[in-house]
């Protein structure tokens, strides 16, 4: 059984953000990047399935710059079997629809994929839509926003607990299906030394836009349906104050503040 895990290489949230003064786009050069936290959970869930079923083939799929190989190598070190990186200068500025189209084309090129798992959202663009859009391009059903997922290889289904407003749904889908996962009950494993050494021997196949049968005008900013109009700073917050002193004193001041701002 072949599972594809989609992972994104994102700027580390801990890094201070620096913006290009004119375009106000994020300066990514020289910024530490990491695996998108939610994709790390997705990968961990899939690797737990592989712990139970070593025959499960886990393929990591990423669309990104060459530097994304760092994230891919970490995923391979954790236990994924091989990887595919779609990288091409023409992809810069792609919106989520283009990303999904590209990843769906890569999944079709990989072939014989039974299941696709991805993080529910990315920490940088945060749309929640790339996973579902991939399912749409593949014509597959989906189980999104899962907080856990169980795979039944013999009966070919995935069962997911998904959080909706005010409830948890238990949903099941027969394969092929696309699943998006958020934080699960366990933290992502760290790669072992043995895993890191083994990763160096695992295959990372690189694909270009042309390899996927797409043209430059269909991808990147040119192929995207949304464009950035402008960026701006949020409305200035009310000025800051600090209260120190005995508990009675500070709460008195706080309540006074809340009342004067008409918050209570």
């Amino acid at each position, binding site marked *: 059984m072949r599972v594809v895990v989609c992972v994104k290489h994102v700027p580390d949230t801990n890094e201070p953000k620096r913006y290009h003064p004119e375009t106000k786009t994020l300066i990514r050069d020289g910024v530490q990047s990491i695996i998108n936290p939610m994709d790390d959970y997705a990968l961990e869930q899939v690797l737990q399935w592989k712990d139970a079923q070593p025959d499960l083939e886990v393929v990591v799929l990423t669309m990104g710059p060459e530097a994304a190989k760092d994230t891919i190598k970490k995923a391979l070190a954790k236990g994924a079997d091989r990887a595919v990186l779609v990288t091409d200068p023409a992809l810069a500025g792609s919106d*989520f629809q283009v990303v999904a189209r590209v990843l769906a084309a890569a999944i079709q090129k990989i072939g014989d994929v039974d299941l696709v798992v991805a993080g529910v959202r990315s920490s940088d663009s945060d*749309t929640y839509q790339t996973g579902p*859009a991939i399912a749409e*391009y593949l014509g597959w059903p*989906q189980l999104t926003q899962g907080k856990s997922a169980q795979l039944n290889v013999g009966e070919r289904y995935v069962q997911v607990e998904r959080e909706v407003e005010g409830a948890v749904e*238990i*949903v099941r889908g027969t394969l092929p299906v696309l699943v998006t996962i958020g934080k699960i009950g366990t933290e992502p494993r760290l790669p072992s030394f043995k895993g890191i050494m083994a990763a160096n021997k695992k295959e990372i196949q690189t694909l270009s836009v042309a390899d996927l049968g797409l043209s430059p005008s269909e991808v990147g900013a040119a192929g995207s349906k949304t464009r950035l109009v402008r960026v701006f700073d949020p409305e200035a917050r009310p000025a800051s*104050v600090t209260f120190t002193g005995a508990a009675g004193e500070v709460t008195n001041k706080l309540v006074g503040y809340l009342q004067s701002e008409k918050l209570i």
Partner: protein
Amino acid sequence: MSHTGVWIVAETGDNDLKPTTLELLAAGRSLADTLGQPLVAILLGHEVTPLASKLFAYGADKVVVAEHAALQQVRSEPYLETIAAILQQNPAEILLLGHTALGKDIAGRLAVRLGGGLTTDCTQLSLDGGELQKVHPVFGGSLMTCTASSARPQMATVRPKAFARLAEQPGRAGEVVNFPVTDAMVQSRTAVLDVVREAAKKIALTDAEIIVSGGRGMGGPENWHLIENLANALGAAHGASRAVVDAGWRPHSEQVGQTGKTVSPKVYVACGISGAIQHLVGMRSSKYIIAINTDPEAPIMKVANVAIVGDVMQVIPQLIEEVKKVKAGAPV
């Protein structure tokens, strides 16, 4: 057929419209007025037609009702296919959904299916010569982006609480159109085996005007009654930092932050939370941030409007008393 109308996807629960639906109507109403086009609500479900009058009362001009027994429960494929069918027959100029579990599930697929441009989690919407300007906060709200699309429908998912519902106009008239739902539209390749409802909480985190949140500085799960009592006194929802969720003190459903929920209440009270950036990105767009921490240099104290240097164990009980007095109208 040309694209026309400002369309919203209504959501229901417990035989009523969800608050986010009324907010979508408010957002859509001003867009419809500017364009001089109708505001249309898509209402899916089983025996939901009576809710049309409430949609009219809160701003809709027309309601397209799609009734089918299989639509009684919100289900991914049946909802996606039915809504897509309606919009393929009636191309929309603008389409709005809530940034809710349903919106996160189907908006992207609708955009691909209909060929539209989608921006998610929008907090402001306006028109510039017929082009929808969609404002969406990024990096935890420290920067705002405005995007637009030349594709139609122009789509957005709207952040809960970003728009206030309009004043109700009971008896306001509108047109109901029934859309025939075929069995083919409501087929599903996935099945819901069970739905476990959360214990009835007073207020959901993403709907709350005020949130009281606790972190490791609260000392332990045994002290959480302080958070709950303060939340009750303020009429607030309560949340938690990742540290206390990972420590098993509180459930993940309460977690605010990068791997939890993003909230933007009017007031966020952070109790014993240091303010790691992964937490800040989940609550930074709160209008007022109040932080209680023994460490004046904790990162949260730098972003707070009111930084209280103190011990939560002493400050919170005192605060609960004073808030109760204010609410009771007594002099403080």
